């Protein structure tokens, strides 16, 4: 029974230790660290804003692409797919989630990146270049956009499998009722299934977001590394976690190390808040499942 207490102690210890390690930097730079725009280890000026920006943009790209895709997959799996195919495709989608992130990153840096740099990105830049986000692509294809795509691949299966469970729990009588009233399948989905599962879908998206925000390895491999804020999503950048992963071993001074851990503390707070929010929504939803 002490084991259960250990879980709580563990979470507390993680919180305490991370802040403890970051303390020198927190004292040195205070809250201004969060809005600081420069990261210069030589002059010992550190600011987290470029990485917060990188984290936000890469996760946003991933969410924008992943959410509709994942919901479409979940709908297909729960409502449309022929019985035989359903199980197979379902487990294939879950296998996508099982691919280790370091393998996805390797694939991203050596296959996806060069492919994007050679085909998609120049085309987008040429035709939509007047929008600042489609700036000049890098030669190797490493950058925010590639990182966003890799994150998309990672979170689609997460969101899809949660949504699928939700959709399957919508009472069949309601679905059949809508169909009997003459609604087409899509109208049934839009009028019955989606409204009934709205908050669950929100929780699924937040869980996916939490994963995207915290992913370190694959992002480090494909994002290219950069400390400037730029509107160009094809340019190199860094997220909170990728900056830590990429620079920690090379950190020359203890204050730089501590600043990196400050980034970790920010990430920890963001991670805790998103997860907590998602779990609370899921929980509010849980006992009502199948009820109304």
């Amino acid at each position, binding site marked *: 029974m002490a084991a259960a207490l250990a879980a709580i102690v563990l979470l507390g210890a993680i919180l305490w230790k991370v802040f403890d390690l970051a303390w020198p930097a927190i004292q040195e730079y205070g809250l201004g660290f969060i809005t600081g725009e420069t990261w210069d280890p030589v002059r010992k000026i550190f600011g987290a804003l470029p990485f917060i920006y990188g984290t936000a943009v890469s996760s946003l790209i991933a969410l924008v692409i992943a959410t509709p*895709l994942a919901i479409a*997959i979940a709908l*297909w799996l729960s409502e449309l797919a022929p019985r035989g195919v359903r199980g197979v495709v379902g487990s294939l989608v879950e296998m996508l989630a099982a691919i*280790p992130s370091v393998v996805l990153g390797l694939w991203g840096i050596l296959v996806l990146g060069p492919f994007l740099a050679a085909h998609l990105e120049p085309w987008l830049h040429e035709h939509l270049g007047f929008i600042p986000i489609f700036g000049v692509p890098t030669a190797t294809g490493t950058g925010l956009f590639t990182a966003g795509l890799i994150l998309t691949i990672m979170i689609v299966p997460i969101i899809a499998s949660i949504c699928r469970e939700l959709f399957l729990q919508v009472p069949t009588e309601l679905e059949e009722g809508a169909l009997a009233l003459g609604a087409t399948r899509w109208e049934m989905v839009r009028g019955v299934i989606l409204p009934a599962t709205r908050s669950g879908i929100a929780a699924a998206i937040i869980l996916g977001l939490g994963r995207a925000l915290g992913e370190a390895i694959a992002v480090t491999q494909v994002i290219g590394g950069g400390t400037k804020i730029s509107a160009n999503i094809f340019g190199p950048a860094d997220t909170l976690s990728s900056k830590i992963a990429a620079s920690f071993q090379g950190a020359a001074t203890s204050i730089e190390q501590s600043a990196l851990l400050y980034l970790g503390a920010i990430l920890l707070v963001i991670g805790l808040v998103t997860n907590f929010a998602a779990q609370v929504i899921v929980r509010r939803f849980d006992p009502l499942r199948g009820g109304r």
Partner: protein
Amino acid sequence: MSAVTPEISLRPSGKLRRRRVVNRVMESIGTFAALLAVAVLVIVVTSVAVRAAPALSWDFFTEPPSLFGAEGGISSALIGSALIIGMATAMALPVGVLIAIYLTEFAPRRIAAGIQLVLDVLNGLPTIITGIFVFGLLVIGHGQSAYAGAVALAIVMLPLVSRAAQEVLLLVPSALREAGLALGVSRWRTVLGIILPTSFGGILTGTVLAVARAAGETAPLLFTCSIFRPDVSTDVTQALPNIPVLIFTYSEQPDPALHQQAWGAALVLMAFVLVASLSAKALLARSRRKLGG
């Protein structure tokens, strides 16, 4: 009673036709999305396999990496990974199962819900944070070690193991539980003698799933077990080579020969993870049917 028959057309027209078109479009979007996901999986797996093929040989599995170039293999990393994951499992499994037993058998509702929340939050925490935590706890002042890496992975595995164990424990028919209690057996003996043996298989497969997840985790190892000598060693107080960190560091190098090695290691890792999680899921489904039916 006049014979006014309203003209009813049985052909869809106007609004109905549009509704049907919209429906058809949405259905094909769904199908397309599902196909896309499967296609991405196939593309990733085949491109890893194709690129890894030239690297694979007997030596690749039995030789340690050489310091220069593409000679040598990944044997030391295989051994290191196996040791680290083994130790992590040995730590996470008992604690995870104990938590699950407490939550399903003993805890009052309120407390159980609270602990469950903590576990879920722990599960969603970025794994790099876990790495930093263990770095601060065990590495500062002691140096990196396989032991520290194992602790980090154990923290990642803990919520997975306990969730899996909980699900299986809940499936144990309450008749069995009550039978034990009715015979005057204490609660704890009931757990040990009846509930655990019944759910043993399910807990085991849940553990395999957690192992599959932990095997691919790189971030927790980056700070705890990433600076190592390439030769074969089983000394767990030193940092040991391991597959994920090997792939990560090689992928950051410009040398194509190292990329080749990284692809080979990636294929090995991916094959292990996919086979382990697929078979565990199949087993889990079976044991669930057995307990549920």
